[in-house]
């Protein structure tokens, strides 16, 4: 398989400063070769002085970057863009940045990137950056479930307009309750290093980052206003069948209440020395990614679940019941 195009998603509630951030990123010479896809046409258009007119679905920007306004299905747009890149019809961009609608739950966008073989053959989800207005973010989180889900799905959280809100401690506590492990940083006018805000998410390609995320989530796990960060720690490997049935049962019964599952676990059939990374968004699960070794001396398996309205002990009790049946059947 040829190297897949990294895709980062920028989300955040209306007015959080997504476009400001992207404009700033595109002016950075190291990030000028980015294609930008906006998933809701005309909602927050890029400034005209930044964007030079192209055709209806594809715009070149003055910095030499690329910008595409999605007018049809996101997947089709990305694939079409990729085809045109291969054909030399557009500049050879090095990455794609997707700006989601401020009112949207970003999960469907992530699913679009994860589900279709044509997409996953050519693209890979690298990270999710969520912007939160430091001044009005608490209000948005109180009023809008979409804003909560944007925060819960983030790999990085950026507090924007922090110059207008000197004290963000309350907002940070709230965000920690929603997403205990995503690093938080403040910025004014989108001034944040692109390498930080678009750093790869916690996947097996970054085992140390994944282990750190799981550790942080375990330390900070809590229930906050119906949002649960639930951590399951294990000394023993999990039988592959039990893991599969458990994840199926989580998807079937929790449905949209379960937002994200990440983990690093040993699988019985593969032995204790090679852990596998688990990554799922709602009911869509990535294939297991195998590590050559544990990232640290701590070889406990950890699975972190982030969801809404999930009883704290339900995932562990469900896993125990399923594992008990799988193990007894194999005797």
């Amino acid at each position, binding site marked *: 398989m040829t190297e897949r195009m990294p895709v980062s998603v920028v989300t955040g509630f209306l007015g959080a400063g997504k476009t400001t951030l992207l404009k700033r990123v595109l002016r950075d010479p190291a990030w000028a070769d980015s294609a930008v896809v906006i998933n809701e046409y005309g909602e927050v258009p890029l400034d005209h002085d930044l964007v030079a007119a192209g055709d209806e679905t594809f715009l070149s920007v003055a910095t030499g970057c690329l910008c595409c306004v999605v007018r049809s299905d996101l997947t089709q747009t990305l694939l079409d863009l990729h085809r045109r890149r291969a054909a030399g019809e557009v500049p050879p961009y090095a990455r794609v940045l997707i700006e989601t609608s401020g009112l949207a739950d970003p999960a469907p966008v992530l699913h679009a990137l994860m589900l*279709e073989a044509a997409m996953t053959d050519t693209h890979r989800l690298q990270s999710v950056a969520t912007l939160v207005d430091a001044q009005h973010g608490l209000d948005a989180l109180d009023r809008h479930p979409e804003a909560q889900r944007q925060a819960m799905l983030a790999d990085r959280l950026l507090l924007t307009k922090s110059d207008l809100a000197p004290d963000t401690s309350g907002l940070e506590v709230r965000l920690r309750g929603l997403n205990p492990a995503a690093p938080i940083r403040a910025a004014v006018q989108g001034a944040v290093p692109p390498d930080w805000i678009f750093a790869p998410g916690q996947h097996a390609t970054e085992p140390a980052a994944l282990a750190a995320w799981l550790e942080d989530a375990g330390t900070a796990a809590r229930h906050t206003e119906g949002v649960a960060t639930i951590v399951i720690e294990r000394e023993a490997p999990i039988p592959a069948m039990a893991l599969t049935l458990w994840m199926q049962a989580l998807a079937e019964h929790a449905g949209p209440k379960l937002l994200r599952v990440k983990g690093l676990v040993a699988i019985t059939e593969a032995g204790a020395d090679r852990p596998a990374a688990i990554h799922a968004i709602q009911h869509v699960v990535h294939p297991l990614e195998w590590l050559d070794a544990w990232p640290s001396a701590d070889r406990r398996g950890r699975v972190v679940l982030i969801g809404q309205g999930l009883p704290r002990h339900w995932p562990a*009790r469900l896993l125990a019941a399923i594992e008990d049946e799988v193990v007894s059947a194999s005797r």
Partner: protein
Amino acid sequence: MTPPELRNLLVDSIAVWDVAGAKVALANDGVAVTAADGLVLRILPAAAADAPLRWWMERPGQRRPYTGMTGLLRGLRNALGAGDGLPSRLRGAPG
């Protein structure tokens, strides 16, 4: 799985399904689930001789077998009227 462990799992599962008013209590070797409308469902472990069956769910005039917890939970959810037609299936993202 002990009856208290089964009870705890079912209490949590009913909460996940947003079923209001259902009660779960220990009953002999299993548990009894009483729905808000008074329907009583008894969940019992199957005898070893019944393998591969693992569970029975009884309601007045009906006794259904299940080969595993995942099927039992699906059956209970439907019996409580909380099934939503096609269940949400796990989907694998291509590698």
